[in-house]
């Protein structure tokens, strides 16, 4: 029986990739360990080795084809003794490109259950109130938006520099800093040793002296090593110095669950940093907000914790083509208007809230969706205005519920909009457990669209 060679998943969040190059041709004999092809993912170009021996019977996906879903057959190997006629027994060439991940790549089959499969619905609301009507838009990924924001600010201000693990020569562990070393050089794009506590503190010192560091954490999970410097040094020194010692620094990196990386690498720190006076905390969802908020964060004279999401990096969105597009820190955005229930999320949960709103619309419930964008300062005015209209609210976060973002939202609503509530606020959140590895358990631990729908129906007293 001929052997199918499948498009491999080369990272926890990969759902598709580009078949950059074939290193074998039909008729070649290969043994296990031979390099068959080069695959380009959103993070890197990787070589794919053969795990079997045989003759390349047919190449199913041509060189240069993009968006090849994980698990798509890309070639067929003939085993010893088989001839070309055996090829007919196996799959015909797969559709080359697909925006949707292959079905096999999702769900609980042991493959990648990445919630990246969530496709952001087009927002029925204008992209950004501050963007003039008729502004030309470019469709770019969140990854590109973040890179562009840093590049623009580095061009604009010589004191801005980027430091972190693998940000320079490797071009970023998640390719966020791609190209920055080439443009700005090793003085301003600095690879650090793996010493989060040390380089976070070094960044704080540089900021005290007058530079504007961008400190990248490979993920915020590793920033726990550095949390003393973020809180005790960066956040508090302005106050302790009677206003003398400002700390204009951005701590940024992916936050929250990626996909199947288990407990130590899947944690949302929004509530942790949201608790701290002296910090600003930002967590964008869209590409436009990623760019506009990062530019604002770099310019801000205060320490800003900038929480990204690995799964969102590859998602595209429209970004205004303006010379200097910024989004103010501390302003939420209504991404879908509705009259029956308010759903408040941030970062990746906004996408799920939008999906939930679509599902609710089919059941006759008109949901309003708010993307908080900033956690501190929290735009309670936008939440209250919405709750006064809908009289019901569901908060959504990937973090734990206890002492969490939803708790803060619920308490704020109770304090200032109690009389407008027709139902208790419901909090949809991550399960109160360390993140499990198993695909099915991980899915259960994270807030899903169905959970949001159920909560919205509950506060609407609909079964």
């Amino acid at each position, binding site marked *: 029986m001929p052997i199918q060679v499948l498009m491999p998943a080369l990272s926890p969040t990969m759902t598709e990739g580009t078949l950059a190059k074939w290193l074998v041709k039909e008729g070649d004999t290969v043994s296990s360990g031979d390099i068959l092809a080069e695959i380009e993912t959103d993070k890197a170009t990787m070589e794919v080795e053969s795990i079997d021996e045989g003759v390349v019977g047919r190449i199913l996906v041509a060189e240069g084809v993009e968006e090849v879903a994980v698990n798509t057959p890309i070639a067929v190997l003939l085993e010893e003794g088989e001839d070309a006629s055996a090829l007919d027994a196996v799959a015909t060439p797969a559709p080359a490109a697909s925006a949707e991940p292959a079905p096999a790549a999702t769900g609980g089959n042991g493959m990648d259950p990445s919630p990246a499969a969530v496709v952001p619905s087009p927002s029925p609301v204008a992209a950004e109130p501050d963007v003039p009507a008729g502004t030309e838009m470019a469709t770019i990924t969140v990854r590109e938006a973040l890179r562009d924001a840093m590049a623009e600010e580095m061009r604009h201000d010589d004191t801005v*520099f980027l430091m972190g693990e693998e940000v320079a020569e490797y071009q970023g562990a998640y390719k966020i800093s791609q190209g920055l070393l080439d443009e700005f050089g090793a*003085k301003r794009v600095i690879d*650090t*040793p793996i*010493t989060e*506590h*040390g*380089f*976070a*503190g*070094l*960044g*704080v*010192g*540089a*900021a*005290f*002296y*007058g*530079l504007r560091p961008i400190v990248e954490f490979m993920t915020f999970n590793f920033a726990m090593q550095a949390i*003393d*410097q973020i809180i*005790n*040094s960066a956040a508090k*020194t*302005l*106050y*302790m*110095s*009677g*206003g*003398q*010692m*400002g700390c*204009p620094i951005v701590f940024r990196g992916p936050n929250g669950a990626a996909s199947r990386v288990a407990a130590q690498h899947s944690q949302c720190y929004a509530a942790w940093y949201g608790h701290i*006076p*002296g910090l*600003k905390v930002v967590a964008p969802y869209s590409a436009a907000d990623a760019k506009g908020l990062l530019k604002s964060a770099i*310019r*801000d*004279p*205060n320490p800003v914790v900038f929480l990204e999401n690995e799964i969102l990096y590859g998602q595209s969105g429209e970004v205004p083509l303006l010379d200097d597009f910024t989004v103010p*820190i501390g302003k939420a955005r209504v991404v879908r208007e509705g009259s029956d229930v308010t759903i408040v999320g941030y970062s990746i949960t906004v996408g799920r809230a939008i999906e939930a709103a679509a599902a609710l619309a089919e059941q006759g419930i008109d949901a309003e969706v708010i993307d908080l964008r900033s956690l501190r300062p929290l735009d309670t005015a936008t939440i209250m205005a919405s709750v006064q209209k809908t009289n019901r609210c569901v908060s959504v976060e990937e973090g734990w519920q206890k002492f969490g973002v939803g708790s803060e939202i619920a308490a704020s609503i109770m304090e200032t909009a109690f009389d407008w509530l027709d139902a208790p606020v419901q909090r949809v959140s991550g399960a109160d457990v360390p993140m499990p590895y198993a695909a099915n358990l991980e899915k259960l631990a994270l807030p899903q669209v169905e959970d949001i729908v159920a909560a919205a129906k509950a506060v609407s007293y609909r079964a």
Partner: protein
Amino acid sequence: MAKAAAKRTKASPGTAKGARAPANRQASTEELLHYYKEMLLIRRFEEKAGQMYGMGLIGGFCHLYIGQEAVVVGLQAAVTEADASITTYRDHGHMLACGMDPKGVMAELTGRRGGYSRGKGGSMHMFSREKKFFGGHGIVGASVPIGTGLAFAQRYLDTGELTLCYFGDGAVNQGQVYEAFNMAALWKLPVIYVIENNQYGMGTSIQRHSAQTELFRRGESMGVPGSQTDGMDVLAVKEAADVAVKHVRDGNGPMILEMMTYRYRGHSMSDPAKYRSKEEVNKMRAEHDPIEQVRRRLLDGGSVDEAALKDIDKQVKAVVSEAAEFATNSPEPDPSELYTDVLVEA
């Protein structure tokens, strides 16, 4: 007492040759008078702070620098006003040596609006951008990466300046200290790490807290050179500092100076000091006092008499009294200050 198997200078307060100065170290009368006055100011200031703490005018933690004066005075004499300094929480002496106003320092100790942080920082958290003094940090070890960041900025901006990063023997076992050493060595940053080895990390003696008690060697694995100096002798400190300053200004990267010193008072005001004997403290004061050493040099040199030194004593006393008075009479911060300085208004 730590063994003094030093790389460059063999010294510890316990092995220093008594209060008499080694004849080979020369300093002008003017220089000696400067050291005398600076050290005496710190000594009298700290004694007053201790007294005011006892009267309830100063609250919280208060870590006095008495006994260690030669370290900061000798070091600061080797750098310029443009160079930066940073230290941990035993910081009053550093602020005075950096030229900060004793009134503002004392008023911060009393938590008044005339203090450097307008009463919001206290003993451990004071800063002066003007004097290039970057704190005053309460977390043991945390100021070491921060100080390294100051040096990073100096190099980035190509200022030609350096940073004196002071910390104690208690901080040397913090992991982030080595993270900072490594980056400073890797990037050849202009920083001098001054380890003020006063023999005790709070109540734990160095023999009980450090497997390797020769702290100047702590950078060896990263190629950071170090030396050990009698930190009770201000001339020895200045000499060692000159070597380090040259090393750093020549672009060779960081250097470690271990200063063998001793604090006469407890770790903080609430320290009963049961971990060491009265005899140990008294012996140190009697035989190695940094101020007495300079006094002897001045008098033995013959160019200055007792009366001249008494005059200085009087001047210093007046400065300290004025600071104490200011700190006592300066009003508490306005209640509206509670919510200011949390964020810089963008």
